[in-house]
């Protein structure tokens, strides 16, 4: 709005207590931000998430492995083979004890409580799935199905194989309807019918059990479920860390490289842009998979980090490598526009140095599209990590890692399995909460960042202020 000398009437009082100009600017930004309801909503949600992340990373929230029922101490763990010709000898090693059998089942009796590792002995000509694994022994008898196949299959993870999921232990919590719940950690199966794939689909829909968001079940072979609500809480810090670090470092790299490319032009521009093309041609997911697979199989850990930190580091690093070229392109295109603006020419005409022109005139005016892209990307990162898990790729050293993307991937898998298995056999119970709540967390985070960045852009850009 043009305010000529005639339209500005009463002079604004100029008191000696003029606030610090920078503080003044913050105040003004806050004033404009406050008027934007959506931005305030986003700010509130992000603030809450950060608090949760701090809380979750400083306290140990029990979110993992609860046994399905709390009963007697020693429990029977039964391994059941599928696919071997009858009479073939096979063996299982668990807790240092090896048992061999030619029958279908091998049983162990183990004290409840700890998690035991088991290994299936080699049978020539067959490969077992899972060939090894861990099993937490809780309050119920457990049954693990081992599938032997002739061709060596891809032994990624037993729990994620839909075939294994259909062969489920059906020995869980058989209580008659109307009887009181046996304990806080024991939950009823639907219609008290253990004959279908009960543990996968039925564990406490939200509101029925003591878990506010229901349980996350982790497929066959483990008689454990995970507290979905606590898992989401616990996963906040990892999710935020991953998204924010990948996006901000990617944007920073892209900003620097794109600005150099756009401002220098010529050969430098050409070289950088071709490099960007090369990086853009790398498929993101594949690259991250390869990086993690190669590095973690060659060296278990890098840079003296722990097993988990190595994975986090590699994940962030892998994404960064393929992430910056998008930003570099955006910034370059913007710099190409801005450098031709009259005010840049005016700055040159007034004797400003090159660095001053770039830092004060070109970069500040080229940054807005980057903010938009960043806010869009922040929500994408957890989805991509979830996608990796969904593909069956073990990016975490433990199979069930509290990160939103991972949780939602496991939830998605369970929903898919429920469709494939349960609906066919007539008892269709979809564990929707396992997909809904992680998805809701991701959605809230992504949309809050969007709202906030939109509001911030409006508040910071003097041209958009009203």
């Amino acid at each position, binding site marked *: 709005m043009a305010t000529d000398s005639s339209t500005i009437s009463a002079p604004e009082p100029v008191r*000696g207590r003029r606030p610090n100009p920078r503080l003044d600017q913050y105040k003004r930004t806050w004033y404009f931000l406050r008027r934007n309801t959506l931005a305030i909503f986003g700010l509130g949600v992000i603030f809450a998430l950060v608090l949760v992340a701090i809380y979750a990373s400083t306290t140990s929230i029990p979110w993992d492995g609860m046994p399905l029922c709390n009963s007697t101490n020693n429990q029977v763990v039964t391994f059941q083979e599928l696919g071997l010709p009858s009479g073939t000898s096979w063996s299982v090693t668990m807790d240092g004890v090896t048992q061999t059998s030619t029958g279908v089942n091998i049983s162990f009796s183990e004290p409840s409580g700890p998690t035991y590792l088991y290994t299936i002995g080699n049978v020539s000509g067959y490969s077992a799935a899972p060939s090894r694994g861990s099993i937490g022994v809780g309050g119920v008898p457990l049954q693990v199905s081992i599938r032997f196949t002739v061709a060596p299959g891809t032994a990624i993870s037993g729990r994620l194989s839909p075939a294994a999921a259909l062969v489920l232990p059906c020995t869980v919590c058989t209580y008659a309807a109307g009887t009181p719940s046996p304990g806080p950690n024991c939950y009823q199966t639907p219609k008290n019918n253990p004959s279908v794939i009960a543990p996968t689909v039925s564990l406490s829909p939200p509101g029925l059990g003591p878990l506010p968001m229901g349980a996350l079940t982790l497929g066959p072979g483990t008689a454990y479920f995970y507290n979905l609500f606590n898992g989401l809480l616990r996963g906040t810090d990892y999710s935020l860390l991953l998204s924010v670090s990948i996006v901000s470092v990617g944007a920073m790299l892209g900003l620097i490289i794109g600005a150099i490319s756009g401002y220098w032009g010529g050969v430098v521009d050409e070289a950088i842009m071709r490099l960007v093309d090369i990086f853009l041609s790398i498929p993101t997911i594949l690259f991250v998979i390869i990086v993690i697979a190669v590095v973690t199989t060659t060296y278990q850990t890098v840079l003296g980090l722990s097993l988990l930190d190595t994975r986090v580091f590699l994940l962030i690093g892998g994404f960064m490598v393929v992430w910056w070229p998008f930003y570099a392109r955006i910034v370059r295109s913007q710099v190409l526009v801005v450098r031709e603006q009259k005010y840049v020419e005016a700055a040159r005409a007034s004797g400003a*140095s090159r660095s001053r022109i770039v830092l004060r005139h070109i970069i500040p005016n080229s940054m807005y599209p980057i903010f938009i892209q960043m806010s869009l990307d922040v929500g994408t990162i957890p989805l991509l990590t979830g996608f990796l898990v969904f593909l069956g790729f073990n990016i975490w050293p433990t199979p069930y890692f509290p990160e939103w993307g991972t949780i939602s991937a496991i939830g998605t898998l369970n929903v898919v399995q429920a469709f494939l298995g349960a609906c066919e056999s007539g008892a269709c119970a979809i564990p929707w909460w396992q997909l809904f709540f992680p998805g809701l967390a991701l959605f809230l985070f992504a949309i809050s960042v969007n709202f906030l960045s939109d509001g911030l852009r409006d508040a910071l850009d003097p041209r958009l202020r009203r």
Partner: protein
Amino acid sequence: MAISEPPSTESPLPSEPRDRAGIEDLAAPADSTAPPDDVVLEVQDLRTYFFTYDGVVKALDGVTFKIRRGETTGLVGETGCGKSVTAFSITRLISDPPGRVMGGRITFAGANLLWDLEHEARFVPVKGTKRVKVKRSFRRVMAATERLAAVRGKSIATIFQEPTQAMNPIFSIADQLGEALLLHRGIEIFDALLAVTPDDPEVPAAIEELVTTARDGNRERLRAAALRVGDAVHLPSFGIQAFYIARAAGTDTESIRPDIEHAMRRLRVSGFQKGFLRSQRRLIGLQDETNKVHMDEMREGKSMGAALRHIRRQRRRERTARFYYGVRGVHARVNRPLKEELFWRTVGTLEGVSIANPVQVARGYPHELSGGMLQRVMIAMALSAEPAILLADEPTTALDVTIQAQILELMRELKHRVGTSILLITHDLAVIAEVADRVCVMYAGVIVEQGPVRDIFARPLHPYAQGLLASIPRVDQPNKELSSIPGSVPDLIDPPSGCRFHPRCPYAMPICKETRPPMTVEGPEHTVACYLYKGPVASE
């Protein structure tokens, strides 16, 4: 032209010897009437080409003129005749590629601004086309850019046609004007800040006087009293601040004293802040020294790499020191005194260009101001360095007529106050008649006629100048049909041979097609390039 021929030993650039003529040597023979040191800028045979896909556009082909001290030189011509290119070629703001200043001599304060031009690039014609490839020497182009930064803004300032686009939209007016002030008046600003005396014994009396004057309500006297407060603390900008504090207090005169005392408390610069300011001052001083060396380079025609490297080393060291202050000083707010000072100086500068409410304007952003206000700000910014020359590229074209008059009046006033010479580029002859002292008429990249403004308007000699003047509507001849010059501006890739105006000229003769007419003297300071006139050839 040499560059369209196959590569030969002949350089496309003028074979003019790089002599070390001072300003007197150059000015003396050319001009017998004016004292020799009157000429601030002398442009000789300036040639600027644009290397496009279709061929080489000879936008300027031998432009020669002078700018005298305190004089306004108007540059008129049709669109596309090279007016703006002339202005931008002087400080080499031509975007390169595609444009390049090819040759000539621009003498400013004894220095040839085009020194070392011939080594900056080689020109390779592409066979079978009219194209010419420019092979730049990266190092030398960079060096030239850095050299010219010594002149740009400080000695030769530029203002642009669209003021709304010539300011950075995301910084406030105070930020941008303050930056220009810091860039050009840095030493002065730091010296003032370091010499502040808030404990001066005269201060209480000055404040007392200000309060008394505020009660009395006379604006002029209030202003004077406020400036005396500034004098008492030895910081002129504080006087401006005090004035606005007093004015904002209005009838509540009792609040003036505490407000001023509060503001004054902020003038107490701590030892740490002083260290920071001194460091900044040294940096600006080193920058000025660099500029001086660059001027010497252009004056003496040799590169002074060793001296520059020495200064650069010192600057690096100083920047490290300032970085230390910057890091340590986040909590001490080391920059605050400087920011305050720049803000109030900006307010003072805006007052100087007759802006009614400078405090609000200084806090505002470019999009909040009208074109006329912004052009005032641009002028203030350009003149903050008190440059010797102001290149005004159609400064009033984008403004409406009443604002135009105000801006022109402002430029004239500032010219007298600062003593700046102005090169005014416009296609508006009325503007030229209003403000210019001398006029150069350009056509298709050459100056065809120049002389005093009265002379040109009363007695235009060149057929093109006559055509231009005939195409203005006149109040005294209401029934006369407006005439126009037939044809249009020629293609500058293949300009007409000889006189470039001959295809459109009503008086064209056979000789006009063959050779370019020389500049002949047809009156006091009045020269024209046309075969119709037989005066003595002007000595250049």
